[in-house]
């Protein structure tokens, strides 16, 4: 019954490496989001997308990029990983249209950058 799937649950990378985090949803949602979650800071929005090939910056986009080539898939890219990007990364999706932006989250990807 998994609806939002994050391909990697745990990753360990070295400083300077390129990192891809992939997310797939099977609910035909228009909106997809990438958050990072850190103790005491809560969830912070990195990027979001309202449509295929469309992306918008969230609150903390620096050091990240995203790709959405298909409606169901939203990738987060760290071009050159740094130790301050060690975090839990959460992908989420939601329907478009009017009303609340109720998110369905994936299980998260815990990234450690050494």
């Amino acid at each position, binding site marked *: 019954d998994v609806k939002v799937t994050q391909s990697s649950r745990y990753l360990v990378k070295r400083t300077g490496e390129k990192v891809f985090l992939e997310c797939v949803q099977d609910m035909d949602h228009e909106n997809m989001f990438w958050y990072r979650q850190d103790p005491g800071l809560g969830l912070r*929005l990195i990027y979001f997308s309202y449509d295929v090939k469309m992306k918008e910056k969230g609150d903390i986009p620096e050091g990240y990029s995203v790709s959405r080539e298909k409606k169901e898939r939203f990738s987060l890219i760290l071009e050159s990983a740094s130790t301050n990007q060690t975090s839990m990364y959460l992908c989420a999706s939601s329907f478009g249209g009017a009303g609340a932006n*109720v998110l369905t989250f994936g299980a998260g990807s815990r990234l450690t950058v050494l």
Partner: protein
Amino acid sequence: QKEVEQDPGPLSVPEGAIVSLNCTYSNSAFQYFMWYRQYSRKGPELLMYTYSSGNKEDGRFTAQVDKSSKYISLFIRDSQPSDSATYLCAMSSFSGSARQLTFGSGTQLTVLP
């Protein structure tokens, strides 16, 4: 000042207790209010969702919104050890494409058997 403030806890209660979790906010444009529950090493899952002011009940859970005070609450009756999790409040306005959620930092709850 953060847009949404939430006491991080941790909060420990005995099984069967009534739990009250709260958030305050500063943006009067918020109209949609949610509570998410996050178990350890899992993603958040939607628990309750309310629109504007008022109460909403779902089993042992009650969500309250007081827009005049900019204050929302989640009550858990007859708390169970399975309720042990981090609870995140979230809220949004409705303003075109900017319907992003603003989250509180979460309250960690432990219900002791």
